[in-house]
């Protein structure tokens, strides 16, 4: 079964390669230019570019934590191998200093570099193609006024045939829908602005929409939930697993502040997104929230009623106190549920049953999307690797439990939490999932809570894997 699938994939790939070579062939080089004089760009244009770069979250992928911004070299694990981001500082030799604006515009629209080589869609040009020429001009101005950094990123680590860039031509033929954003005239201006930002530079769907086996987003499952850097990007359509449904206000608050009282703090790659959106004006934040909330739609009666109940409970005060020994430890020895409750009482209750509000207090788990999500990956990540402190910035901090809890311990704890704080069915194969996450077989990128922190590299998965 598996073999035939692989065989089919290979055959299709060969076909794509052939099509790529013969039908599309090589793209032309755009002549190098002398590095633009930073003073030739107006201050307004640079400022606008800065805001757009924040929406695009450029810095997150194009910067190695602890290294100069935009100098590239960050390893991005993908199902096809590891891709290293490029240097997009204006250094003429190792960055994009000798790119003309035309070359930059083409890269954003078509995913082709100045020399004419196809770029891997880890650079989300399938979204960036929607960006207007005017916005690209501002982005170009912003990048050309950064500090040039001389730095060559490591080679990509991709097996055959993915290491052949020409096959990307075929990929584009199948999956790249080129062209600018088309507004929906039936919708408000605000909605359209939000849609333009979310579908274009914001590239929300790059993580929040599932991908097919060729790494292309499945457009018929728009915002249906995907993954990024080892984290679940929850469904942000009607299938959102948030216990209290999102609305425009809560989304706008979350995007603006990186947390919300009914939802907790952003973490994983989303923390970088909310960390970056700080530069964006409120109007754009609200526009994005308006658009995404409309994609989610109105919750049904049952969900709404459940939400009301949860909000009422939360308003009463922090979580019900679990006097730790309330679990009958004597009788329950060997019962995994009770082990989970015990672990919860000594390791979790101190913060999560305390009285501190969001974003720095532990979230009540009945409000937690992670505990209510179909896939437990995110809560496994957080339990094992914690939320590392953001050096010098207020941030939600949680200790890593990888060195304390065994795979079985984590599974017991999560089973207890699922039972206690969610109506959803129990998760399956928890022990296996924890083991694969801990070993690094399933790669997880851990960054401090505000995301853009240039913190130490070794926090998280790689460290856990070495142990």
């Amino acid at each position, binding site marked *: 079964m598996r073999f035939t699938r692989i065989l089919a994939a290979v055959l299709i790939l060969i076909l794509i390669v052939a099509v790529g070579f013969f039908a599309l062939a090589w793209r032309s080089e755009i002549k190098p230019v002398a590095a633009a004089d930073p003073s030739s760009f107006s201050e307004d244009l640079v400022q606008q570019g800065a805001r757009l770069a924040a929406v695009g979250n450029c810095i997150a992928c194009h910067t190695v934590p602890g290294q100069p911004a935009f100098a590239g070299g960050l390893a991005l694990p993908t199902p096809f191998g590891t891709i290293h981001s490029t240097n997009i500082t204006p250094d003429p030799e190792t960055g994009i200093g000798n790119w003309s604006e035309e070359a930059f515009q083409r890269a954003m629209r078509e995913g082709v570099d100045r020399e004419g080589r196809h770029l891997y869609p880890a650079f989300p040009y399938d979204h960036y193609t929607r960006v207007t020429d005017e916005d690209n001009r501002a982005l170009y101005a912003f990048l050309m006024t950064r500090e040039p950094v001389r730095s060559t990123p490591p080679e990509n680590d991709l097996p055959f045939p993915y290491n052949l860039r020409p096959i990307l031509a075929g990929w584009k033929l199948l999956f790249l829908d080129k062209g600018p954003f088309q507004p929906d005239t039936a919708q408000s201006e605000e909605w359209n602005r939000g849609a333009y930002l979310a579908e274009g530079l914001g590239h929300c769907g790059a993580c929040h929409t599932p991908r097919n086996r060729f790494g292309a987003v499945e457009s018929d499952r728009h915002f249906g939930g995907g993954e990024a850097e080892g984290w679940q990007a929850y469904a942000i359509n009607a299938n959102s697993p948030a216990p209290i449904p999102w609305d425009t206000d809560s989304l706008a608050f979350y995007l603006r502040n990186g947390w919300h009282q009914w939802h907790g703090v952003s973490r994983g790659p989303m923390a970088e997104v909310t960390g970056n959106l700080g530069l964006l004006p409120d109007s754009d934040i609200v526009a994005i929230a308006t658009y995404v909330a409309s994609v989610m739609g109105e919750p049904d009666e049952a969900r709404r009623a459940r939400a009301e109940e949860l909000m009422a409970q939360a308003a009463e005060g922090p979580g019900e*106190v679990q006097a*730790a020994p309330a679990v009958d430890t004597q009788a329950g020895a060997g019962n995994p549920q009770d082990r989970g409750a015990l672990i919860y009482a000594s390791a979790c209750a101190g913060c999560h049953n305390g009285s501190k509000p969001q974003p720095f207090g532990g979230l009540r788990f009945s409000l937690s999307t992670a505990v209510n999500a179909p896939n437990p990956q995110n809560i496994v990540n957080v339990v094992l690797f914690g939320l590392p*402190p953001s050096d010098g910035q*207020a941030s939600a*901090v949680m200790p890593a439990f990888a060195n304390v809890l065994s795979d079985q311990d984590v599974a017991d704890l999560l089973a207890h939490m699922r039972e206690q704080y969610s109506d959803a069915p129990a998760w399956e194969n928890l022990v296996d999932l924890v083991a694969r996450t801990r070993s690094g077989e399933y790669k997880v990128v851990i960054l401090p809570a505000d995301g853009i922190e240039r913190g130490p590299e070794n926090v998280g998965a790689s460290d856990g894997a070495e142990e």
Partner: protein
Amino acid sequence: MTIVPKDGFTRKGLTRRSVLTGTGALVVSFALAPHVLAQQQPAAAPEPPKLPGSLDDARRLDAWIRIDANGDITVFTGKIELGQGIKTALRQVAAEELEVEPGEINLVTADTGRTPDEGFTAGSQSMQNSGTAIRNAAAQVREILIAEAARRWNVPPETLRAEAKTIVAQDDRTIGYGELVSSQLLAVEAQPESLLKSPDALRVIGQSIPRVDIPAKVTGGVAYVQDLRLEGMLHARVVRPPSPAAQLQDVDTASVEQMPGVISIVRDGSFLAVVAEREFEAVNAMRALQQAARWSEQAVLPDQNNLQAFLEATKGDIGTVAEEGSPEVSGKIFEATFRRPYQIHGSIGPSCAVARMVDGRLTVWSHTQGVYPDQEAIAEMLGMDLANVRVIHMEGAGCYGHNGADDAAADAALIASEVPGRPIRVQWMREDEHAWEPFGPAMLMKIRAGVGEDGRITGWNYDLWSNVHSSRPGGAGNLLPARHRAQAFSVPAPRFNISQSGNGDRNANPLYAFPNRRVLWHFVPEMPLRVSALRALGAYANVFAIESAMDELALLADMDPVEFRLRHLEDERARAVVEKAAEEFGWSSGAPKGDRGRGFAFARYKNLAAYLAVAVELELERETGRTRVVRAVSAIDSGEAVNPDGIRNQTEGGIIQATSWTLYEQVTFDDTRVTSTDWSSYPILRFPSAPDSVEVHVVNSPGQPFLGTGEAAQGPTPAAIGNALRQLTGVRLYDLPFTRERVKQAIGV
């Protein structure tokens, strides 16, 4: 074996005989509680002579030094170890003059049952006060021993010397200290003058002797009050109100009383606590009580984003800190407003105390900075006789000023008075310490100064707005539980006082020489947030403002900032540390390249303690606004350096701590509650942002008085950082802390 040269003494015109004949009448009384004793004595001589350091307050030698018949030497100090190394430095001072090794000295620190009353261990005054007292007392004890040996052998005392716990004669006869002492030998009043060893004869003072307390601290010995385990000890936790003005309305304790291990729930007004057999049982019961309690809260806090408005709205007095010439300012003018937020001490170990009430007598073990004031306040709170309250100091985690120590001691005392018999250990939780310790006050500093064509400052107007920086117990009203009891003690009205060493106005008057100046303190009496002494008091913000202004004035004068400072410094010791720091930093080789800047600052702490100059190299990541001090080079003159490595350790720590304050720290609150309640919401410097190097160069001044060291770096450091950022980016930051958002906003993208 050390032999003291015959001329190894600073004689100051005295002979040994005159020292002896001058000793006052033997006071036949036990040396405890000298201040009580003093009150009981009839008014004798109208004005007793001024004695060196704290000797002036506890005047008898045996209050400070005891020698047993077996030769054991015990030195008593009313000061305490705060991690500043005082236990080591005081031993060095005593050992020097007693001609013994520091390891041969037993040192007893603050205990109302045993040691002199030296008030608070604060203001970097331990060496100045206690060190000076002990050194003089030790020298006098040595002379008394020599005189006693001379009497017994019938030889002139000039022919004898002290050496290794013995007195040695010219014919090599020896007699041990223990054999010489009798019960009354040291029960004498100290003299105003002592035969101190001359600087060139010192063998222990000036040596970087390893700290005596470190080995136990790194091997798990009992080192802190947190480690105290008494027989039958119970564990207590206090349930603090959710906000400063909250009052307890109602609490259903029935279910909590049933929880495992719970012994008692103490409720008195808004004071709520639980006592349990085991510590985790107390924690669980505390959490349950937090859920059960219902409080009424009041929105009484100022707008955190506009503390300036709160400070300026004050109707308090205005005090003149300094005035010289006219307040007119001419030439090129620099005018600016600087602001400092509320900040916390942030001890790594939350406050803790143990108290036991037996037969109406209360003993409290506390890491308070002042056992005597605490004794008085606790006695007042509980309506007890002073004689029935004993407060014994045990170390806590570093406090850097008035943290929760006294309140925890009062918590334990109050609970012990309700649950007598067994010892009660109160351990504050992290949230208690963050939200309830008294904060370092918010401040506002306005400056207007000018510089003339000749590159000299023409005039200086400086106005600061601040609370008083001390609300230490002196009275039960300054203890949290006393405020929360049903019969509440009211908070004492803050006293406005302009003193030489300064408070909110500490270091508000620049040490620089120029003709015209006016420095005013606009006193802010309202304290919606409880505030008290945080390391350096007002000096942190005042030196920040002054030294930022000095750089701006240097720019207006088109002069190098170090040269500009030197031009206005007349004190040679001040000039020496400025020159030393600049030289060691390599200031003359110009500013660093790339995204690094450099800054310089100087101050003499309190204008009368240690001199300190510091230069820093700062790194900036423009995209995020993140800054880091890469390198700091400082020079400090603390007078006669008793333990140079101790001075370096303190100063390195001061620079790093002040860096953390300056880059990251501010208490946050809404209109009702303090919201920075742990290390998540109140971040401090972590290792990834620590500098690459911190150098401290000790400029020794042999023969000069000991000068307070521990707080000297707090003021110059923020200014040097601000100046480095200014040099690098051309932008001045006026608001502490220099958060990433502020830096980003200031420099633009």
